[in-house]
């Protein structure tokens, strides 16, 4: 074998040297080496070391947020200058808790640069507040002095004033407890249940504290809007005491309960529920009328705005007067025929028709018809919630289009079945009304009067067939019922 090596040694040496030449450099190492000094420090190290944010750096160390900013996640910090920190009211920084709140309102757990294709970026801060970063140059009203400085775990912008955390609308209302009648009333709804179901919600909020619990803990937050929610924006009108009492007084005659306290509580609720609106509306853009989520048209007179308070989840206007006329405040109740809550007996499904038809003008409608059921006084049940203590005029639209004969049906308002199975405590029963074939008009069928609201104010409405077992005669049909309250 020695001979072979001798013979071919030149070639072997040549190829070995070639290999050595090829594999001596390591371009990958060169590639991965970083020469950027910025990336040698993390946010905590940087912000505590540079001079222009040294005051904020001190706060970071004091609150422990320097450890948060040493994490390997990506953060953005809007760091206020030392002058800005000096201008912060002392009350915002008087204990560790408020300092933490203050510092966390400057940090977001995402890298957000000043360049974006959106003009406004809504940023969730560690304080759980949502701040608006506009055009990369203004953060929640504070001008950005130096933008887009980066470190190993995120970036920071230096801002000319501090981002003092604002209260939200509900926190503001809480702070007014005792000094403002409307705020005081709203907080009583922590305890008082406007509807029976509120108590279940409040119990749930207690046993399962979690993301939804604040929306369940108060009857107002549950039934109107969750003003404690930072993710949405609201407009809220807070009335001064005199205005509030006037409005409650106007509603009291229509919400008469068994005692005066109860009456006032309900009159107050039906008053305040119309003063919160979804979306934050700036004063210059306020229209002359806003429609509440319950359908009430609320006139807005800007001259009566006493104070405009910008809060973290919207805007609150303190009002000297807020006059909502009863004509728009008292709502008509409309009950759709095709949405019954029950029947006098449950075995007539095959005779119950949910229909989708058109009237003579080609306008579509949906209704219910129960035909050929063979039961005298067969009834369909509906619920009318939030009726007022006043006279109601009753209208219905009933379509009799597949029969050639007229049939009769009637309405009964209120009442319930007692343990004996007897029907008791009805408010009124309207007379039998003819349903003539092929009439598509809304018809006035009578009126009833509620002098005092029950404990639940969730009245049973019964649509009752003729007292006959004959097919065609005991038919029931209903497109809708309208209950129109009359102003006293």
């Amino acid at each position, binding site marked *: 074998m020695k001979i*072979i090596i001798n013979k071919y040694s030149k070639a072997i040496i040549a190829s070995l040297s070639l290999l050595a030449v090829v594999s001596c450099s390591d371009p990958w190492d060169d590639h991965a080496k970083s020469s950027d000094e910025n990336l040698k420090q993390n946010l905590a190290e940087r912000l505590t070391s540079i001079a222009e944010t040294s005051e904020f750096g001190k706060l970071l160390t004091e609150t422990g947020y320097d450890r948060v900013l040493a994490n390997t996640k990506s953060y953005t910090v809007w760091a206020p200058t030392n002058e800005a920190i000096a201008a912060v009211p002392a009350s915002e920084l008087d204990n560790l808790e408020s300092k933490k709140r203050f510092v966390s309102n400057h940090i977001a757990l995402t890298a957000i640069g000043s360049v974006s294709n959106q003009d406004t970026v809504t940023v969730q801060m560690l304080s759980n507040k949502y701040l608006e970063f506009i055009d990369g140059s203004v953060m929640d009203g504070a001008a950005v002095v130096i933008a887009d400085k980066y470190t190993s775990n995120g970036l920071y912008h230096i801002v000319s004033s501090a981002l003092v955390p604002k209260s939200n609308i509900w926190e503001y209302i809480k702070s007014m407890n005792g000094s403002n009648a409307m705020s005081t009333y709203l907080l009583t709804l922590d305890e008082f249940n406007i509807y029976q179901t509120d108590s279940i919600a409040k119990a749930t909020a207690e046993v399962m504290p979690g993301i939804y619990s604040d929306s369940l803990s108060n009857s107002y937050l549950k039934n109107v809007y969750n003003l404690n929610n930072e993710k949405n924006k609201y407009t809220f009108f807070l009335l001064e005491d005199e205005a509030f009492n006037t409005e409650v007084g106007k509603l009291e005659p229509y919400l008469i309960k068994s005692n005066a306290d109860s009456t006032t509580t309900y009159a107050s609720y039906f008053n305040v529920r119309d003063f919160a609106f979804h979306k934050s509306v700036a004063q210059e853009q306020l229209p002359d009328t806003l429609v509440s989520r319950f359908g009430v048209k609320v006139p807005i007179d800007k001259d009566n705005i006493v104070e405009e308070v910008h809060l973290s989840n919207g805007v609150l206007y303190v009002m000297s007067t807020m006059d909502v006329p009863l004509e728009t405040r008292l709502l008509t109740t409309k009950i759709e025929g095709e949405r019954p809550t029950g029947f006098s007996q449950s075995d007539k499904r095959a005779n119950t028709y949910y229909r989708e*038809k058109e009237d003579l003008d080609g306008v579509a409608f949906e209704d219910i018809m129960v035909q050929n059921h063979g039961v005298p006084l067969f009834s369909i049940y509906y619920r009318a919630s939030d009726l007022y203590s006043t006279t109601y005029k009753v209208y219905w639209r009933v379509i009799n289009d597949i029969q050639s004969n007229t049939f009769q049906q009637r309405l009964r308002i209120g009442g319930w079945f007692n343990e004996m199975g007897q029907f008791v405590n009805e408010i009124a029963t309207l007379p039998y009304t003819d349903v003539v074939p092929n009439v598509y008009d809304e018809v006035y069928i009578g009126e009833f009067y509620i002098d005092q609201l029950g404990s639940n104010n969730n009245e049973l409405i019964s649509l009752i067939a003729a007292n006959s077992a004959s097919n065609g005669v005991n038919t029931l049909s209903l497109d809708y019922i309208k209950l129109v309250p009359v102003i006293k």
Partner: protein
Amino acid sequence: MKLILEKNMKTMIKITRNKVALGVLVTLMSLTSCQDYLDIEPKDKLNSDQVYRDVFDADAVVVGIYGKFMGLAKKYIILNELRADLMSPTANADMYLQQISEHAVTADNPYANPKDFYEVINNCNDALKNFKIMVDENKMDQGEFNERYSDIGTLRSWLYLQLGMHYGEVPYITEPISDIDDVQNENLYPRLSLTELINELVDFTEGLPYTSPYSANSTLVIDVDGYNTAKFFINKECLLGDLQLWANHYTQAAAHYKTVMETGSTGADAFYYDTYRVIYTLPNTVDIGIEYERNQEQDVRSLISSNSDGWRSIFAREQDARWNNEWIWSLPFDSNFAPQNPFIDLFSNQGGDYLVKPSQEAMDLWDGEAQRNGFSYDARGSKVSYHVINGQPVIMKYLFKYLDTDSNLPFDVFQTGGDWFLYRAATLHLRYAEAANRDNQHRIADALLNFGLQSAYTVDGVTDVTDIEQTHQPFPYDFDARQGDFPFFRGPWYRNNGLRGRAFVERAEVLGDSLTSIENNLIKESGLELAYEGNRWGDLVRVALRRNDPAFLADKVYEKLYKDGNPKADEVRSKLMNTDNWYLPFVWKEDE
């Protein structure tokens, strides 16, 4: 190997040292580079001499072509529906889908690329050429050849008809070619106008030796993976009818269609009265019409509409007797096999991309109908063909096997099975009626469209039906729909209920000229009944060309764009008033 090695060792000892090295090298070479190794045949590819050896190879070729053909499903639906008036792009759709909808297609539009059609055509050409060689070399018998050759030949004609109606002028290539990009070379392959193409297709397809479906004992008709393959293959008589209808040869078209319509009368069909006859619905039986629970027609919620009963079940039911009564050509997509079902991504907003939706025009079309119970719509629309899910109108025909219609959520996001719907009894009846109407058989056309033959030919109060309830005409217009007890008659068509009868809608009235009015009714019905099954563009082009009235097509596309709020509606209408602008550009990039 050991032997060789030993032998080499012995030789080595004898030779000089210098030669030892060479000897080792040679030995090494002979060990590693043996001839067999270089010549080994790939295990996942076939050479040309390995296919076309016997009838089973031929079957594999047929199945392979259909597998490849299924890759065209998405394009077929996009081109035939989105270019017409019943389908609109959603906000998720890309600019290429918008272009298709607005008839402003650029050369790089992937949906308008005809190359994949030609790839399948080339496969067909290759198969047709080799089938001939096989029969010449006695590798399959004449009967086997006839069935397979006619099947692939008809499929190729179908592909060309599609190309013709979308591209106007296309090259008609019937020999296999090695470079598919040559198709674009007009010097090699001159292009035929749509009329010339259709004449060529009629000549070729009428000349095929076999026109029935594969015989029941054919090796291609089997149960595989839970599917019976009989309806996988194109129905030749249906395509012949279509070609003759496009060629305006109405009697011939009607004859081909009628042959299929009489499928139940031939052989020992257990569903003599039902197969392809569009029959009535009966209370308390499983039917494929719009039907309410017995005596509850007035109740919306009594509509029978499930995957196993009612009109909706046409698109969702198992391959049972009722399925067989309706479906003539349908190919299944299965989540376990390629090709993947393209329709979930296309249509569903639950686990899909939701790229297309029903146009407002289509929804208005259904809402403008009246049902026979007085309801002010056609339940084939919002109750079946589309549903509103999360506020978005979603085309449902392809999704019933995927979405649970109670929760509007997928049964299982990985079970993406479905079907490509190609031809069914309703399609057949509408096309037959179109041919019959043009052949001056207005009454028959109107009967099949509306409430069926018996009700059109009966005489009130007559109980002896010996001489009534039938057309008294020769083939292809012979229908016997007699139903009488004294004397007893049950004509083969006595159960026919007409398409609108089966759909429970009021009759479509004939206003003015019977010919035009009934034809309008038929095309409208095709929209109501067959929406999103890929027939719309062809229907509009065929009738507009026949009437020499581009407005017939242009107005419908205009209505769609206008109602969708598309500002280009007017511009597109005036463009489509020139028939030259109906067609897509015939180009593709060669390296794609």
